[in-house]
């Protein structure tokens, strides 16, 4: 075997190993189960700001805790933990939504900002979890 043959064999070995590191997809129920409590929690915070009701704030905290627990369970069950790989489009969407939240805070009110922030991270979380191992 020549040096070049050995180099090509090694490159094929590396490619095959890298392909084997593809993370397992989450079950279909995980992305909505994680994203929905998050968005709902922030919506409750927004309603709490608008109405001044403590009950909405407590519901928001509860839903955010549900999100954290579900997210942690989903993350800990991953045998191969991957880096989030994001396209430019994804970055643009996330930054755009966050910018909208900041503008909402500055020019409208805190409730709108919370609603948009919840939507931003909910969308990001849903896309990330639903694409893992499938995209």
């Amino acid at each position: 075997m020549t040096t070049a043959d050995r180099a090509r064999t090694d490159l094929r070995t590396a490619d095959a190993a890298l392909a084997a590191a593809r993370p397992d997809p989450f079950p279909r129920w995980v992305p909505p189960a994680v994203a929905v409590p998050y968005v709902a929690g922030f919506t409750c915070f927004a309603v709490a700001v608008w109405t001044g009701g403590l009950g909405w704030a407590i519901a928001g905290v509860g839903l955010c805790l549900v999100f954290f627990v579900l997210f942690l369970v989903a993350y800990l069950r991953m045998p191969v933990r991957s880096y989030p790989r994001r396209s430019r489009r994804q970055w643009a969407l996330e930054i755009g939504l966050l910018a909208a939240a900041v503008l909402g805070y500055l020019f409208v009110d805190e409730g709108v900002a919370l609603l948009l922030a919840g939507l931003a991270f909910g969308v990001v979380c849903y896309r990330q979890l639903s694409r893992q191992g499938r995209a």
Partner: protein
Amino acid sequence: MSREPRLDPAVQHPTKLAVVAFLSGCAEADFKTVRDRLELTDSALSRTLSGLEESGHVTVRKGFVGKRPRTWVSLTGEGRTRLASHLAALQQIAADALAAVPETTA
């Protein structure tokens, strides 16, 4: 400042190369998954990881999932850089060999 592609003697063994290439595709992976997906035995993977840990390519971390212990393995920043350099050197060798092949005439 760019670094010249250089072969890394620490990952020239096919098993070591496979393990670091696998780990370059993720943040961290558990021992069992690496063993199963690369079709290695426990002892072979343990030996390989020990060598790679000594050379600074990987870090090994003990953790728990629920009450079950798990061993997590990840590539270090230095390991990632050296793997990239090694793969670039291999590609260079393969490309040079291809360029050196004399054209055959019909």
